[in-house]
């Protein structure tokens, strides 16, 4: 029996690709050595959001009296890490069952085993060899092991901790690190950031980075550039000051997780090199998601996998670069889509920024989350929106409106003309879109 497609890895690239392949009538087998859903579902996107929500709820309860909810004794409020993890596991299990259901419904087979690619048409797993017409590698990435902290805890291991550290040292760079730092700070711990470099979140617009750095500085989270730090046994020295820590967590840049394989695929910086169709240097072997190094986001991985299925089905892919939101689940959330101001400037485009503050938004005020802003950057000829950045509660959801607008090549006029309900946080689009300058 020959499969049309064998997918190695069941994260956002693997499982989404498998469902689509099943829907398209491709005989599909997914092989994963661990849990269905991969990093995203089991340790990444979903669990981190779940524990962040627990932390945000903790903060909300701490400030419940401001909303007129009294009777809660501050000294009795506590953060129960084990309960937060239990809740997380339930969510993960539910989503995992959902994926299995969708696979079954679409005729996708699943095998829990370690896979080895023998040839472009053969995959070995569970001591068997499976014949296939196409292979999709969707094995993802993990934080690159560090020479300076070889024993650092990885994100996957965080959830198995019975007790959380009081003074975690978070080393690395990127959105995960910022989220994690804020998580510890919100539940009353004292995290320390040891940054590989600045900006901390290089893909983000400077306005978002600036906002977050100020926010963390106000929350007294030390930010120490690794280059200026002296690392001792259980403390970091920086500018004549010692910062003791009780655990190191690796939240650094990521490296590809490569499956075992006989064919020599071309690599770039350790990631599988792919073309526009996400095909590797060997015909019939595709790579989607983190493992190809084009992006480290679940939705990017899924989009790539869908393109792989299209490609297998003979659909020509458009040349254009796809646009996707970048979301950071901090409090308040950060979100952006399209070009950053720096990118627009670098292209020499005449542009204008329409910035509107959340503190003028009625709904945000009632929700007690009036911190933040929206920035809509448009070119000045047709007012086409080129980039949107947001800081607000639920910014990660609100950004979708900008996504649709930009997908349809919309301008600020469409935003201003679209009647938004009042009171809503989303009104801010209409308000900003209608601004003169």
């Amino acid at each position, binding site marked *: 029996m020959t499969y049309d497609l064998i997918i190695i890895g069941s994260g956002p690239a693997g499982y989404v690709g498998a469902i689509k392949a099943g829907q398209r009538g491709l005989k599909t087998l997914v092989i994963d050595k661990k849990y269905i859903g991969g990093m995203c579902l089991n340790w990444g996107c979903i669990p981190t959001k779940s524990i962040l929500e627990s932390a945000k709820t903790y903060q909300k309860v701490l400030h419940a009296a401001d909303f007129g909810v009294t009777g809660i004794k501050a000294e009795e409020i506590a953060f129960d890490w084990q309960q937060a993890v239990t809740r997380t596991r339930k969510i993960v299990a539910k989503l995992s069952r959902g994926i299995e259901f969708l696979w079954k419904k679409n005729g996708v087979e699943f095998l829990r085993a370690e896979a080895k690619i023998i040839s472009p048409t053969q995959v070995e797993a569970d001591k068997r060899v499976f014949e296939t017409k196409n292979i999709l590698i969707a094995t993802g990435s993990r934080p690159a092991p560090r020479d300076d902290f070889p024993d650092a805890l990885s994100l996957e291991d965080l959830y198995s901790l019975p007790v959380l550290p009081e003074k975690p040292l978070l080393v690395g760079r990127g959105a995960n690190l910022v989220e994690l730092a804020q998580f510890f700070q919100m539940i009353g711990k004292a995290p320390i950031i040891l940054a590989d470099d600045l900006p901390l979140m290089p893909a983000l617009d400077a306005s978002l980075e600036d906002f977050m750095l100020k926010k963390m500085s106000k929350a007294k989270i030390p930010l120490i550039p690794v280059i200026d730090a002296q690392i001792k046994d259980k403390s970091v020295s920086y500018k004549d000051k010692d910062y003791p820590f009780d655990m190191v967590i690796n939240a650094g840049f990521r490296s590809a997780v490569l499956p075992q394989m006989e064919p020599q695929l071309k690599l770039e910086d350790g990631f599988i090199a792919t073309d526009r169709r996400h095909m590797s240097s060997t015909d019939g072997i595709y790579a989607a998601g983190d493992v190809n190094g084009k992006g480290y986001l679940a939705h990017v991985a899924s989009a790539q996998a869908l393109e792989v299925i299209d490609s297998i089905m003979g659909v020509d892919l458009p040349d254009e670069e796809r646009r996707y939101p970048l979301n950071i689940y901090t409090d308040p959330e950060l979100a952006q889509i399209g070009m950053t101001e720096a990118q627009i400037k670098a292209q020499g485009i005449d542009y204008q920024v329409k910035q509107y503050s959340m503190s003028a938004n009625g709904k945000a005020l009632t929700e007690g989350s009036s911190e933040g802003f929206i920035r809509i950057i448009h070119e000045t000829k047709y007012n086409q929106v080129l980039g949107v950045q947001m800081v607000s509660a639920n910014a990660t959801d609100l950004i979708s409106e900008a996504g649709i607008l930009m997908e*349809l090549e919309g301008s600020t006029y469409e935003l201003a003309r679209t009647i938004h309900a009042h009171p809503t946080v989303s009104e801010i689009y209409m308000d900003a879109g209608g601004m003169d300058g």
Partner: protein
Amino acid sequence: MRYIFKFPDIGEGLDEGKIIEWYVEKGQSIQSGDALVKMETDKVVTDIPSPKSGVISARYGSIGDSIKVGSALVEIDIEGVEAKDAQDINQEEPAKAVTESVDEEGFGGVVGTIELAGDGAYLPAGDEGISSPNEPKARKKALATPVARAMAKDLGIDINQVVGTGPAGRVTKKDIESHRPPAPQRSVGSIETPRQRTEPLSQIRKTIAKNMLRSKQNTAHMAIMEEVEVSTLIEARSRLNEALKHDQIKLSYLPFIIQAIARALKKHPVLNAELDMENERIIYKDYINLGIAMDTDDGLVVPVIHDADKKSLTDLAHEIKSLADKARERKLTLDDLKDGTFSITSYGSIGGYFAVPVIAYPQVAIFGIGRIAQKPVVKDGEIVIGNIMPISMSVDHRIVDGAEVSRFVNDVLSYLKDPILLLA
């Protein structure tokens, strides 16, 4: 609710018109049917009526500006119609106000059809196109992104001509950027030599070409020719003119011929009809509107005498003169040109004996009158000098057969031979 009214395709193949006069100002209240603007095309000067009641919220173009068909003329805020109501109206009366006139463009109705944006044209936002599913002749509105639309307008590109590469053929910014407009007309005929020259077709010539071809391609032309002795008619006309000499009007033969034809059409209604092939039926017209072919410096126009059967000889004479004056001064309005049911051409006034005129499709027939000449005729067994009017008629054989046509011609000629019968 904002409604964008675009310069309608006035159905003669024109693609632009010039603003002569604005009748409305921004902020002015108007009623449906009120004239918005006076537009001049190659052929006519006409008032464009508003399809909606409301308040003018924007006006596009100044006096003297050329406006392309399909470009916005005005924006109307429709009173008291909220978005939802407007939708409802649209659903209830989908066919309303789609087409102002049902007459097809053609020889007889050079400017025939004025297409208005349908009731489907309520626009909640954006410059998205006006279209109506009940408007088969309207050009399909291109699907396009807002920026592509703005860009096309800015660059003077007709977005409907741009091939869209986005989802479902959506025209994107990139498509506008890569769109090459068709080469300008002048370069088309770059075959100038010392012994020939080229001249781009005028709008009116293009229209005539299109209409003639359409007629020949869509009908089964058949011709009948006949002669009629009109000495009595000549005498009647000259006596009438004598009697009317203080009325500052001089009767030509045309009013008599019109009356003769109008009467004969009543007896032979199939010649005052239209073939609806699509629905396999014949549409009989209860009104007799005769198109009169007129030569002008710019080319042929065919203004229409409406309800010709109800008009006296002098009424007809006055109307013919008035239409001729307007045609010469290019002041014919759409109303003057539309709804013809049968056409008459008096080619003989310039010269020519017999002819095979082209039917003003979708009319059924055209009646041609040649030059009256003195000829020997046999009367009471003797050869005498007669006054002979030759006539030539083209009919669409799809709808009517030769026998019926001959009967019709016999009837017309009997009136011309003995015009006293017109008094009956």
